[in-house]
């Protein structure tokens, strides 16, 4: 009876404490992986930025300049 009285409250006091620490560790791990996952997704948009520079030149503008560019070749044959 004395031993049971001493060990039971001890276990009760001990177990919830471990559970809390475990839960905190678990939350930290989830947060950590979520943050790491977030970092990886940030690096992804680096590639399309380079392509964007060429996309900015519109076909409409190219067609408008085409005649001028052809005349330029005739006018400056030494640089082409």
């Amino acid at each position, binding site marked *: 009876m004395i031993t049971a009285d001493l060990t039971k409250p001890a276990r009760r006091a001990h177990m919830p404490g471990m559970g809390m620490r475990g839960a905190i560790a678990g939350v930290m791990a989830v947060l950590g992986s979520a943050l790491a996952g977030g970092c990886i997704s940030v690096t992804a948009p680096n590639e399309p930025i380079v392509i964007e*520079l*060429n996309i*900015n*030149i*519109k*076909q409409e*503008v*190219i*067609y*408008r*300049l*085409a005649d*001028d*560019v*052809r005349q*330029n*070749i005739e006018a*400056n*044959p*030494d*640089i*082409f």
Partner: protein
Amino acid sequence: MITSHRTFAKALLGGLVLAGLALSAPALAQRDPAYDAARRAGQVGEKMDGYLGVVGDQPASVRTLVSDINIRRRANYAERAQAAQPPATLQEYAFTQGCILIARLEDGLKYQAPDGTWQTKAGAAQRDPRCP
């Protein structure tokens, strides 16, 4: 009779002037012999952006030649882009020039394909879909 003689003289003079112009025009069209040789040797090629590129590893003389021509091209593009109505950007003008230069390039000469690789012109070139 005198008047017909005069008109004949005028026609003759006009013909000589025209012949003189026709002869002087090709003299203007000449590109630098070193540049022409580098083009034919495949050491330099036309890039998509309207500038000249060095194909692979080339001696310093070729690299200098390319850099000199590109400086002159850039100045020319900037001037013409500004003069266009409405004005275009340097990049827009240069890119359009690249489209036309690659299209007009003689067979056997080098050009840059849209994937960035150097190609030898043989018939229709691989060009950007926006090219006219």
